[in-house]
């Protein structure tokens, strides 16, 4: 059966019959078209079925614009918090020795394996103003977490927590700390060493992690849905608008808001791809 027909340029090393090659090719392309390409294309088709009308219509709905603004604000806040936290933890994990380091490194990945609904439940159990562990005390001091912006931001922070750390840690390890030691021995203080030596070395990893976190934060649904209360025009986020409008048969609005989220995600993807090529060019 192994007929050694390796026509030049057809398949890479390993040989293989042309029939098998074609079979696999068709199988893969067919699978991806049916599962991803065609459905995604149809989403776009639905969105622009009446030109830009449905987009314009949703942008005039104050509830929708409020949701989009809220999602934007929450995503930015969550990314900033995760950036600061991520930088500190990455530096600690790679450059310092302290008891419990391995455990921390393992715990950091926990949010990736938790179901979004469970994340929401976890936050409720601690911060709910009625039955939470800390919630009632916080409310007596005038701090609302659940059903308010802080809770939405926390839920978003939770699910995107490890992303920046996962990007920075391998790069920090690869860089080593020779240059940092050199800077210090030449009299630079910790702050100068960080700004002048460490940060430039990891800037692409940081940028990459930030974009990934931003995309994840804009699109979070389950965890936010549990803690936000979903009050139209107040605590409802963009992803929740997609669900609400779909369930109330307002399909045009649903597709339009979904398209905006997709657009944001695609922009993030493109930025990430550009950062990657730039990073690789610099390394070369």
């Amino acid at each position, binding site marked *: 059966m192994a007929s050694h027909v390796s026509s030049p340029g057809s398949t*890479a090393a390993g040989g293989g019959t042309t029939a098998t090659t074609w079979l696999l090719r068709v199988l893969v392309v067919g699978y991806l078209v049916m599962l991803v390409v065609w459905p995604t294309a149809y989403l776009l088709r639905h969105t622009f079925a009446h030109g830009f009308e449905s987009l314009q219509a949703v942008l005039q709905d104050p509830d929708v614009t409020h949701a989009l603004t809220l999602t934007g604000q929450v995503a930015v806040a969550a990314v900033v918090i995760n950036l600061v936290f991520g930088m500190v933890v990455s530096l*600690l994990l790679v450059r310092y020795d302290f008891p419990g380091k391995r455990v921390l490194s393992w*715990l950091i990945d926990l*949010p*990736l394996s938790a*179901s979004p609904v469970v994340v929401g439940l*976890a936050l409720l*159990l601690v911060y709910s103003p009625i039955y939470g562990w800390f919630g009632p005390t916080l409310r007596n001091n005038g701090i609302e977490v659940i059903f308010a912006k802080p809770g939405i931001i926390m839920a978003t922070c939770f699910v995107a927590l490890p992303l920046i750390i996962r990007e920075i840690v391998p790069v920090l390890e690869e860089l080593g700390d020779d240059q940092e030691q050199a800077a210090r021995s030449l009299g630079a203080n910790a702050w100068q060493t960080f700004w002048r030596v460490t940060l430039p070395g990891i800037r692409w990893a940081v940028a990459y992690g930030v974009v990934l976190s931003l995309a994840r934060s804009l*699109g979070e649904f389950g965890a936010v849905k549990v803690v936000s209360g979903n009050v139209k025009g107040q605590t409802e986020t963009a992803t929740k608008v997609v669900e609400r409008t779909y369930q109330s048969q307002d399909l045009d609005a649903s597709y339009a808001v979904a398209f905006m989220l997709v657009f944001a995600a695609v922009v993030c993807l493109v930025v*990430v791809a550009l950062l990657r090529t730039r990073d690789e060019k610099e390394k070369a």
Partner: protein
Amino acid sequence: MTATVSVDGRSARARRPARSTSGSARKLTATSGLGLGVAMIWFSLLVLIPLAAVVVKASGGGWSTFEHVLTNASTFRALRFTLVMAVIATVLNAVMGTVIAWVLVRDRFPGKGLLDLVIDIPFALPTIVAGLVMLSLYGPGSPLGVNVYGTKPGVFLAIAFVTLPFVVRTVQPVLEALETDAEEAAASLGASRFTTLRRIVLPSLTPAIFAGASLSFARAISEYGSVVLLSGNRAGTAVASTRTYSYIEGGNTAAAAAIAVVLLVVALLAIIVLDVLQRRMARHG
């Protein structure tokens, strides 16, 4: 070059464990100690204490909470459906993901780069949009004449969509790094293509396939956003996470926490089972 993009964050590329680089790690200073303290307080408030609260809540009522949850007919059905679906999706991904990675690495045809980009779409899209994407082609008014809204195949479709990239993205880099010398040698010694594949290529890919498979299983049992629209609130199509949400909405947080703990146990068991399977395959080739 293939950009391994994973906007979702459940990245296929496993992070190397943080380890101190050959004795260069330093003892904590005052500043870094303070940083560690503040970071730990935030991490505890955000992640550790809340997750502990789930476990405490679930175990607070002793076995009776778990018994109540597991003997509830619709919850049990949802858990069983979630598990069966996750297993099928994982097997499908293990096979299709490997085939896709193979074609992306070894085959060459125009438009392949675009295909590589397509793999990232499921990670990039918000989960609720992923559900809407599935409904736009396979939902009500589908041009294909099918309607998976509120059906089990519909929910499965959503799971297959969101878990697509895991195996592809773990196998792809390994396959790229794999030298073809051994394959050529085997072929020149008269091994058939199938034998070469089974004895030379697959063994080197097995760890990557299993790593991707366990990621996609974990995602499949915990998925919520993409399933919500497709399940259409029908009892037969409820999955574990939609049941959890119903319990939370109904104010029964103990039951919700119990499901969360059951899922956690299932995830741990799956890791063990996959590990045993992988060892066995490594031994028998």
